[in-house]
C-alpha cells in the first residue's frame, strides 16, 4: 500500500512548494537526476528538463496545462547504455502509461527509474496555450489560474478555451504505476498537496522533506472519481461520434483528407518506436512511370499516395498499445483528428485481448504473445467467412 503524506503550502503558492520538494528529492539523494517540466527562458512556455543540480530547479511546473511532448519518448532516449544514475521522471498519467508500454517493448530500461506521477486536469493544444500565455505574465501565473478549482477536480476553462480532446476524454486523470505520486484533486492547493509514496520508499524519512502524514485522503479519491465520471461521459460521446464518422470508408477518408503525409503524428507518437519506419523506406519511392500508370488507371490519383495505407498500417501496428495521449493530433499541422480514431479503435482492439495499454508492466503486449485455445473460429473452413 502506498503511504500518503501532505505537503503543506506556506505562501499560498503550490508551485514554489513543489519546486522545493523536487530540490529536496535531489539534495536528499532520493534520486540522482530529475526529468521534470520547467519554464522556458521566456517563461511563456514549459518544457522538459534533465536536472542534476538542485539549485537549477527554479521553475518546476508539473501542473501546467501544456504538454510539449510525451516524455516517455525521452525516457527511451535516456535508456541507451548502462543506467548508472537513478532518474526520477515527473510524468502525467499518459506519459507513465506510454512508458509502461515502452518498457514492455524493451525501449525503456526500468532499472534505476523512479516514476513520479502527477494528477492532471488536462492540457491545451499548443496553439491555444501559446495564445493563452500572452494574457499572463508567465506560465506559473497561468497555471495558478488554471488550478483555481482543484477541490472539485475541475479545470478552469481559461478564456473559454477548450482542452485537447484527448484530455477531455481521458480515462486516467490520476497516475497509476507511480513510485511517488503528487495529487492535488480534492485539495485546496493554497494549503496542501498530497504526496503518496510506494513501498520501496518506506525507508525514506519523508519528514526531512517537509512532509507530514496525510491521514484521510478520501477527498482526493472522491474528487478523482468525479473527474473520471465527467471524462468517461465525454469519452463515450466521442466513441458514438466516431462510430457515425466511420460507417464507410468514404466518410473516414473525409476525416483524413487534409493529411499531407508529413508523418509528424508518427514522430510524436511515444509508442511508435521502430528505428526505421517502413514509411520512410525506399519501398514508397516510385518511378515516374509507376505514378503515371496509377493516374492513367483511375484518371486521377491523390498524391502523395498511400495516405490511407499509412494510417491503417499505423493503427494495425500501434492501436493495441495506444494510450490515448493525443500527441498525434497536436502534432498535425493540418488538424487531422488522428487521436480521435486511434483512441476509439485502440479501445476496441485492446478489448479483444482484454488488454489496456499502460495498465501493467507484467501484461505482455498482445502482438508478442498468444494463447493456444483462443479465437478457435479464425481460420477454420467449417465456419462462415468473416
Amino acid at each position, binding site marked *: 500500500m502506498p503511504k500518503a503524506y501532505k505537503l503543506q503550502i506556506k505562501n499560498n503558492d503550490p508551485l514554489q512548494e513543489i519546486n522545493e520538494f523536487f530540490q529536496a528529492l535531489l539534495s536528499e539523494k532520493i534520486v540522482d537526476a530529475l526529468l521534470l517540466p520547467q519554464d522556458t527562458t521566456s517563461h511563456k512556455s514549459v518544457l522538459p528538463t534533465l536536472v542534476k543540480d538542485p539549485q537549477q530547479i527554479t521553475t518546476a511546473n508539473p501542473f501546467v496545462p501544456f504538454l510539449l511532448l510525451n516524455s516517455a519518448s525521452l525516457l527511451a532516449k535516456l535508456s541507451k547504455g548502462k543506467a548508472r544514475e537513478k532518474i526520477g521522471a515527473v510524468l502525467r498519467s499518459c506519459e507513465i502509461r506510454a512508458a509502461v508500454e515502452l518498457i514492455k517493448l524493451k525501449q525503456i530500461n526500468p532499472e534505476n527509474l523512479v516514476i513520479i506521477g502527477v494528477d492532471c486536469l488536462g492540457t491545451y493544444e499548443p496553439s491555444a496555450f501559446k495564445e493563452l500565455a500572452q494574457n499572463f505574465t508567465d506560465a506559473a501565473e497561468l497555471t495558478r489560474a488554471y488550478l483555481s478549482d482543484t477541490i472539485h477536480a475541475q479545470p478552469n476553462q481559461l478564456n473559454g478555451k477548450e482542452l485537447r480532446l484527448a484530455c477531455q476524454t481521458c480515462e486516467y486523470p490520476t497516475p497509476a504505476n507511480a513510485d511517488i505520486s503528487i495529487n492535488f484533486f480534492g485539495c485546496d492547493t493554497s494549503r496542501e498537496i498530497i504526496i503518496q509514496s510506494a513501498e520501496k520508499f518506506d525507508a525514506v524519512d519523508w519528514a526531512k522533506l517537509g512532509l507530514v502524514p496525510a491521514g484521510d485522503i478520501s477527498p482526493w479519491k472522491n474528487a478523482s472519481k468525479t473527474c473520471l465520471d465527467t471524462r468517461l461521459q465525454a469519452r463515450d460521446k466521442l466513441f458514438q461520434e466516431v462510430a457515425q464518422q*466511420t460507417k464507410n470508408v468514404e466518410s473516414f477518408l473525409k476525416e483524413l483528407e487534409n493529411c499531407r503525409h508529413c508523418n509528424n503524428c508518427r514522430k510524436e507518437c511515444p509508442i511508435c518506436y521502430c528505428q526505421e519506419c517502413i514509411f520512410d523506406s525506399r519501398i514508397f519511392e516510385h518511378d515516374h512511370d509507376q505514378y503515371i500508370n496509377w493516374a492513367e488507371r483511375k484518371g486521377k490519383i491523390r498524391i502523395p499516395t498511400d495516405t490511407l495505407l499509412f494510417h491503417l498500417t499505423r493503427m494495425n501496428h500501434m492501436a493495441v498499445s495506444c494510450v490515448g495521449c493525443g500527441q498525434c493530433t497536436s502534432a498535425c499541422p493540418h488538424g487531422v483528428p488522428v487521436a480521435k480514431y486511434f483512441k476509439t479503435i485502440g479501445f476496441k482492439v485492446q478489448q479483444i485481448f482484454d488488454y489496456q495499454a499502460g495498465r501493467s508492466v507484467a501484461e505482455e503486449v498482445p502482438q508478442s504473445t498468444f494463447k493456444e485455445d483462443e479465437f478457435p473460429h479464425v481460420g477454420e473452413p467449417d465456419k462462415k467467412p468473416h
Partner: protein
Amino acid sequence: MAEFEPNIIAFVCNWCTYEAADLAGTSRIQYPPNVKLIRLMCSGAVDPIFIIKPLLDGVDGVLVGGCHPGSCHYVSGNYKARRRFMILNKVLECVGFDTRRIWIRWIAASEGKIFAQTVTDMVEEIRKLGPNPLKQMWDI
C-alpha cells in the same frame, strides 16, 4: 460487359499451405485461376501492410494460408498471425471496410484438396460481393 472475375492474392506459408497448393497442382486438382500465390516462410511473417496495400490498390480479396494451430514450423508463427488477423479485422471493420474480403485459413501440406476447395469457395464468395469499390476511388 464481361463477367466480373475476382482478383485474389494469397500469402501462403512455405511449409503447409504452399505445399498444399503444390499438391493440388501435382494431383491435377482443378481450381479457379483467380488466385495469385505469394510464398512466405510463415503466416507469422505476413505484416498487416501486406494485406492492406493490395486491398487499397483494388484487389478483390486477400487470403492468408498457414499451418494448423499447433503445427507451425516455427512453433508459434501462426498463433501470432491469428492475433494480427483479429487486430486487422477490427481496425478495418472500425473504418467501415468490408472484411469479408479477407480470409485466413489453416491448410496443411497434405490438404491439397482443401486448398483447391478454399480457393473455389473464396472466388465464389468474392464474386457475390462484386468488385472491390476501392478500385475506383482516387483519393485513398
